[in-house]
């Protein structure tokens, strides 16, 4: 099987995560082959418990697979030491979580600069980058606030800014709008569209169809395995006419 013209930035082959034994064997991720090209946005959808979050953790090196390979830009994740994975996470991978996972006692700026500090950059450089990113997500006026003073959508935007701190190759988002109301979802949606337009590679796990609709490719997952893949690129605005009926506008 030959690769496409660009080498994929993220690739898995026969990825499996099992636990339990014998009759109690559970395959959280079952023989998954995935290819994500640079600049692509891939959405993974499926019912709860289908293993999509687990898949994301495997892609980010937060968990070790039982079998199979995970490749990120030429480095093989499943055989790396914890130390190597940590280094990778602070240079090449950005995480966005459903529960935001911001440090409650740090301000927005301090949260965003944390990955840069962990990567060993100088405090000033880290602070500047944080300011830059907060401006990008439109939260400059909230930079000195603690997470408790921010709304859900604002917190997730801070989390996205944090994920971008070290210019990662790929951003992995696990149910980014799971805890957000529709207005906040829109804000995050716009951000993802902007990131996509800027060429950032995104892998998003979601069961929100709105977020999935921003992707280039949509993969459906069930019981740990990929069952369907849809290309969502293309689709001219001409189709809007069809929706007119949907809005009740036909005779």
């Amino acid at each position, binding site marked *: 099987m030959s690769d496409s013209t660009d080498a994929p930035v993220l690739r898995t082959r026969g990825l499996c995560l099992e636990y339990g034994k014998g009759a109690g064997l559970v395959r959280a991720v079952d023989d998954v082959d995935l290819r994500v090209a640079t600049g692509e946005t891939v959405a993974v959808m499926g019912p709860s418990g289908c293993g999509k979050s687990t898949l994301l*953790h495997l892609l980010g090196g*937060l968990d070790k697979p039982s079998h199979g390979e995970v490749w990120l830009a030429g480095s093989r994740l499943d055989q790396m030491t*914890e130390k190597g994975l*940590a280094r990778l996470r602070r240079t090449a991978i950005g995480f966005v979580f459903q529960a935001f996972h911001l440090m*409650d*006692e*740090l301000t927005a700026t*301090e949260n965003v600069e944390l990955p840069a500090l*962990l990567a060993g950059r100088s405090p000033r450089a880290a602070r500047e980058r944080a300011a830059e990113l907060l401006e990008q997500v439109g939260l400059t006026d909230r930079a000195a606030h603690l997470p*408790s003073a921010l709304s859900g959508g604002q917190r997730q935007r801070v989390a996205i800014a944090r994920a971008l701190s070290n210019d990662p190759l790929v951003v992995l988002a696990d149910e980014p709008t799971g805890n957000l109301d529709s207005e906040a979802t829109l804000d995050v949606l716009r951000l993802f569209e902007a990131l996509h337009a800027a060429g950032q590679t995104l892998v998003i796990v979601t069961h929100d169809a709105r977020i999935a609709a921003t992707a280039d490719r949509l993969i459906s997952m069930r019981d740990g395995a990929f069952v369907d893949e849809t290309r969502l690129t293309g689709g001219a605005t001409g189709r809007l006419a069809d929706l007119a009926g949907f809005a009740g506008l036909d005779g």
Partner: protein
Amino acid sequence: MGPILLVWRLVRADLRRRRSEAALLLLAITAATTTLTLGLVLHGVTADPYQQTRAATAGPDVAATASSPLNGPVSPADRAALNALARAPGVIAHSGPYPLTWAALGARGLKAGAEVMGRDQTPASVDQPKLTQGSWIRPGSAVLEASFAQALGIHTGDSITLNGRSFPVVGVAVTAAIPPYPQVCTVGCDLELPQLSPSNTGLIWLTQADASSLATDRERLEYVVNLKLANPARADAVAQAFGSNSHTLTANSWQYISQQDANLVAAEQQALLAGSWLLGVLAIASIAVLVGGRMSDQIRRVGLLKAVGGTPGLVAAVLLAEYMFLALLAAVAGLLIGRLTAPLLTNPGSGLLGNASSPTLTATTVAIVVAVALTVAVAATFIPAIRAAHISTVRALADSTHPPRRTAWLIAMSARLPVPLLLGLRIAARRPRRLVLSAVSVAITVSGVVAVLTVNARNAQHFGSSSGLNNPWTNQIDQLLLLITVMLILLAGVNAIFITWATVLDAKRSLALARALGATPQQISAGISAAQTLPALAGALLGIPTGIVLIAAVNHGATMTYPPLWPLIAVIPGTMLVIACLTALPARLAGRRPVAEILQSELV
């Protein structure tokens, strides 16, 4: 009845859930109560053996001495005074005057000093030493005092030299007239020879002729007379009166001698009481650590209790009752263990006959120990209990009452430090109270260690020229101090491990997040260790002056001794190293837990 039963049920259920914590806490408080019990129980234990010895040897009520002035022999007037005293009204019997001098002693290659008393071969009516080995003196032979013989390692049949002359040892005996080695000089020594010092001088009996022949120009002959009074209770007054107007005439009453016999035990008692203070405070810190570590869990329980109708009083009662129950158990355990192990410390040594009276637990002792244990429990849980009683139910259930603290300047400063220190400082700063407890716990132990170092140094000074003698005083005190130090270190170590474990649990999510953002497990472990080692440093620095103050307090104004410099400086890095090692294992375990698991579980 109902509320009490309910409280009891809740307490029992909670203790069952947290068995290991309860056990460790029990251990901590029991260490304090045991030490306290021992300290209190040691009072007056040598009184009995002294009385036994007195009875067996016809011990004197007063022992009076005429010593030689600086440049000459004992004056005839002094000798007359001594004789007059022996015939004074109220004196029903006497023995002596006996010649007394001081000589350099050599035995088995050891160099020591001897208080040489000349005696008759026939038994005296007052103060006839009782033989525990061999036979009484003959011309040319010596009888050693029992604890001196033990210190030198000499038995009947061995040979000693006095001022170079050899004397075979024909017997070993005990007496009530002079305290046993190494307390001999507490009733007065006249040491001119360079080889002699209070710590290596013991009592030895020769014939009067032999004793007199040992006197030299430097160590002249002195005279001692032993008296029995019609009214032994007046011995103090008589002794005082005799020695009041003269530098060369002294007398000791049996009460005074008995007191000196008890010196060792008194010193032990002092050490034990001081030790029990330290352990008590450490136990308070231990409880505070545990209570604080379970704060959020407790708060939720409190919320539940209140939501089902518990009054604030009930809530506070449950919290207090649990720890008071443990404290009570610890008090009982401490009393029992103290009572059982006291005989180990009350050994009067070979210088006195018989065993120490079996220590009894008086009602006062029991009351004091119980009161102290309960105070320890209340002191540690009082404030949390009051706070818990007044928390609003909604906030308690939502568990929003215990967010980590934010210290802006610390966070800003930590950004400049390497990653492990960055993490460590930020972790430590989340819970300032725990930081303080860490430091206090270490400070207490270090002050104990400093105090022990000081006492050791002082003993070495004092008994420095024991030069190989098996000094029972230093042995027993050393063992006791070692025991107390070991207990302090153990408890502080347990505290450190507990605090680390509590920190790891509390910072679980933040640490998992740090790892997801790219911190290596090694950096995380180092950070957790740093979070403990930094307060340990503060504790060590605080503990040193505290230890010195403790010594000063125990000395009550006697000459101040300071701890030796190099060991003192070594304590600081030593403490940090110990803490770093103790916290290394929990820290390592924390660094290895699967990140995904922790972050996912936060969603539930």
